[in-house]
């Protein structure tokens, strides 16, 4: 085991290799590794953010659905209301129409009755006059007995 100048050459070789490593190997490798680390960190952060966004979106969707459902309910209620309103109105209209027709019918009937009564009265009056004339066997002067006659007619 003799120590000799190999020692010195080995020493120089080592320093040169260390310098090579420091210059050509370490920086690019570490740079790549650090970049990848940053990328991975970014990716993880992005996925976290995405998850949060997804949650928010889900919440938003739920809210929207709830709003829509409320609105739909409202619309249905309105429709129902409208429906009953229309029904009521139709009913009212029908009742009104019926009453009107009934009233008209009644009026017609009353009118006809009145008319018939007038005709009847007139007929009765003429019959009464005819009767009286026959009873008196003389002609009753219609003009002189008008007062009597009218009294008779009113009594019928």
């Amino acid at each position: 085991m003799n120590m000799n100048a190999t020692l010195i050459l080995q020493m120089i070789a080592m320093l040169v290799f260390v310098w090579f490593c420091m210059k050509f190997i370490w920086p690019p490798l570490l740079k790549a590794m650090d970049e990848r680390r940053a990328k991975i960190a970014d990716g993880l952060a992005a996925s976290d953010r995405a998850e949060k966004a997804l949650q928010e979106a889900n919440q938003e969707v739920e809210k929207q659905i709830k709003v829509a459902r409320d609105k739909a309910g409202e619309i249905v209620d309105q429709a129902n209301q409208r429906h009953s309103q229309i029904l009521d109105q139709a009913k009212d209209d029908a009742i009104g129409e019926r009453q009107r027709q009934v009233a008209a019918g009644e009026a017609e009937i009353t009118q006809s009755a009145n008319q018939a009564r007038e005709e009847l009265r007139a007929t009765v009056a003429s019959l009464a006059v005819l009767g009286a004339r026959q009873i008196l066997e003389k002609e009753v002067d219609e003009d002189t007995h008008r007062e009597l006659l009218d009294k008779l007619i009113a009594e019928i």
Partner: protein
Amino acid sequence: MSSGSEAPTSGEYIQHHLQNLTFGQHADGSWGIAHGAAEAAEMGFWAFHVDTLVWSLLMGFSFFFMFRSVAKKANSGVPSRGQAMVESIVEFVDTSVKESFHGTSRLIAPLALTLFVWIFFMNLMDLIPVDVLPFAASSAGIPYQKVVPTTDVNATMGMAIAVFVLIIFYSIRAKGVKGFLGELVFNPLNPEQLGMPKVVWPFVMAFNFLLEIVSLLAKPVSLGLRLFGNMYAGELIFILIALIFTAGSGFVGAGLSSMFGDHIPAWFWLLATATVFVTLWMNMKGLLNNKKTLWFVLAELFLVGGLAFVGGQLMHFGWAVFHILIITLQAFIFMMLSIVYLSMAQTHH
């Protein structure tokens, strides 16, 4: 086993394996390769272990090109398998540095990575069967070849001294020349704080200096010698295992020789081979159960010396598996200690 026409003794075999290929100035003034340990020792300090240098540079460049090829293509997208592997090593080193080195330096992390991977690669050469490369080298006419640079104290101490230089550099950078020298002479006994008279100061300072210089010098020595010692011992055990295998076959060979004389007759080998085949054939025909077959084959292998071969392989394999742990651990320890020493150099006591 590896070189020479006649078989070397165990001692020669070990020595041959532990001898570096030394290039230096011969006693007669000419430059060349040393043949034998004595000649290498004569060359003195200004000689070079060519094998150590070549293999360590080869490993260093392997490290450099392997990592550089990844670094060039490195991107922050999905990494390729090679990039993932390199990055996991870098990450591991980076974490170790961040945990142990207090302060900022652009040098420490690359230094740690270089030391770790380079030393690991050099140690890895230990797993190549001990005879392969020396045998190949001797076939090519190179007399000696020690392929594991970290089993050469020059290599490990060279790296340790380079770290030591950095330790001093960092000390001076952090504390200034005055602070660095002051730490050497005013620790652990500070005469000023202890209120000693000025007359005794030089003695106290000399005493301090003795203590501190030892602890300072212990750093590179412990760093270099630990690695060297572990790897040298591991290599030696590989060599011894190889010797056991050789000696085992030699032992059986000697037994056979005593039976048949110097020349083992051809009919013996034919008979041995035939016996093995007959045993296996009988097993296939169901005439022998597996257990009996195993015992027969083992006995036959033992007879022709194959058992020693198998045993040697098994031991070699076992030690190699254990050695994987050692080579990684030693590379890691060298890296960690360098980081810790450099971190200590920066802090004020």
